[in-house]
């Protein structure tokens, strides 16, 4: 166990160091312009100089991601329950869901902006749209994957449909729900940034776009790195929640 934690933190760190050093060497040796590819030190100094700016722009993006994710969970899970509990609903809704999912969200973004305006609502809507599908599909899969033996046990005890649902199906679907949620939460970052790209006045996506148009490579890269850090933090938060809600699954998948 300690070995595991040790290896899991040491190896990525070593890998990261190697990449950063190589990157720095490349940009210095070949004298690459910071507009094309800023060196790690450039990015580091840009981060320090613009720390409060970065922080100020992180907040709206974080809010968009968290609320978009909450919406996706709050609406996605009930829909998954409906899908898995009724064949009729499943037949009706599933094709529609897949059709919806096949529409590129980037293409829909301008339309959503027209509907919801430049404020946070349009970003929430896009973040929700990208996060929704994995949650619905994984939860529905999980609800349908209840081990047959457990269902029979419940049946032999004459459990009611409701008891079977919340005492057997739901807990056994939890690993699937969290698998979907982990994918979904990183997708919300993409959704929020798409929304900010299409039209916004704040947020890390907005900052990135502005810096880029001013040919401020280091700041654009700093914003990019913050975005990925935001994604990882959100992923980590869901993984923590998973541990909390599923104490019996001790590092099953190991992320």
């Amino acid at each position, binding site marked *: 166990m300690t070995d595991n934690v040790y290896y899991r933190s040491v190896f990525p760190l070593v890998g990261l160091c190697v990449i950063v050093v190589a990157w720095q060497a490349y940009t210095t040796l070949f004298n690459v312009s910071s507009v094309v590819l800023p060196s790690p030190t450039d990015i580091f100094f840009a981060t320090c100089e613009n720390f409060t700016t970065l922080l100020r722009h992180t907040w709206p993006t974080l809010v968009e991601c968290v609320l978009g994710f909450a919406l996706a969970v709050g609406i996605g899970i009930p829909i998954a329950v409906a899908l898995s509990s009724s064949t009729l609903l499943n037949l009706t809704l599933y094709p529609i869901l897949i059709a919806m999912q096949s529409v590129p969200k980037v293409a829909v973004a301008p339309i959503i902006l027209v509907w919801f305006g430049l404020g946070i609502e349009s970003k929430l809507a896009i973040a929700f749209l990208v996060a929704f599908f994995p949650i619905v599909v994984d939860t529905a899969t999980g609800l349908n994957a209840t*081990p047959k*033996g*457990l269902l*029979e*046990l*419940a*049946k*032999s*005890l*004459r*459990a009611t449909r409701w*008891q079977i649902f919340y*005492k*057997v199906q739901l*807990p*056994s679907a*939890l690993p699937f729900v969290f698998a979907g949620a982990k994918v979904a939460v990183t997708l919300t970052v993409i959704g929020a940034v798409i929304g900010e790209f299409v039209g916004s006045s704040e947020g890390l996506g907005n900052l990135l776009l502005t810096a880029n148009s001013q040919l401020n490579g280091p700041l654009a890269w700093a914003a990019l790195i913050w975005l990925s850090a935001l994604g990882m933090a959100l992923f980590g938060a869901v993984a923590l929640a998973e541990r909390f809600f*599923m104490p*019996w*699954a*001790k590092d099953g998948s190991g992320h």
Partner: protein
Amino acid sequence: MTAITGTREQAPDGLAPSSEPFGVFTDIEKRFALGDGSYLTAIEKLSLTLEKGQLISLLGPSGCGKTTFLRIVAGLEQASMGEVRIEGKSISGPHPDFAFVFQQPNLMPWRTVLENILFPLEIRREKTPKGVDRARELVELVGLAGFEDRYPSELSGGMQQRVALCRALVHDAKLLLMDEPFGALDELKRMEMHDLLLSIRARTNVSVLFVTHSISEAIYLSDMVAVFSRRPATIRDRIEISLPYPRQGEMRYGADFTRYEHEASRLLGIVR
């Protein structure tokens, strides 16, 4: 010890006067529809009578239809033909007073040992402090004291199967349906479980249908051994075991025991 040692009070459930045996299974037949439109007959004309408090072992070759029969009695499977009568009433679905020990432990990975055992009480809305005490007592009886708060993934297969046994015993079932419940245990633990099952049976007067592959297990436990034929299963013959209860470990080596073993082996076609 009160909950388990106390004999079950004979509930005045109004059915008592009927002189019909506890369970009567008549001409049970089970056909499974196969994918290609044909049928597989798993059970054919199987009739059996189970007296109140009787322990009958169902002994038969693998794949002959023992599990299927047990599932029909449990109401998990519909018989294609025939009738299952319990206390004089024909039944066609799960019965509230039955408990099933499946061939696999079927534990819920998200519940601890104790929570798994309490599951039937929760479903029946009978989870009381007394029930919890009883569950703890059972955990101790099967030799799992100290594991109450562990998750199933932390237990061996044999330990999981013992948890499943506790779960079946936690509510006062009138009929225990056991499908090779001790298959995953080592010889020593298995013998311990035999004596435990018999002592619980003696105290609660629960009726038992016990499926097994093991000839000696069937003889040691039972009032009567029903030997199944190959598929389609039917009862080939019955062996009344007249060894006295309480059964003692030494009986396993007695002449009578050996005679029963020989007879069962002959009926199974192992020896002539």
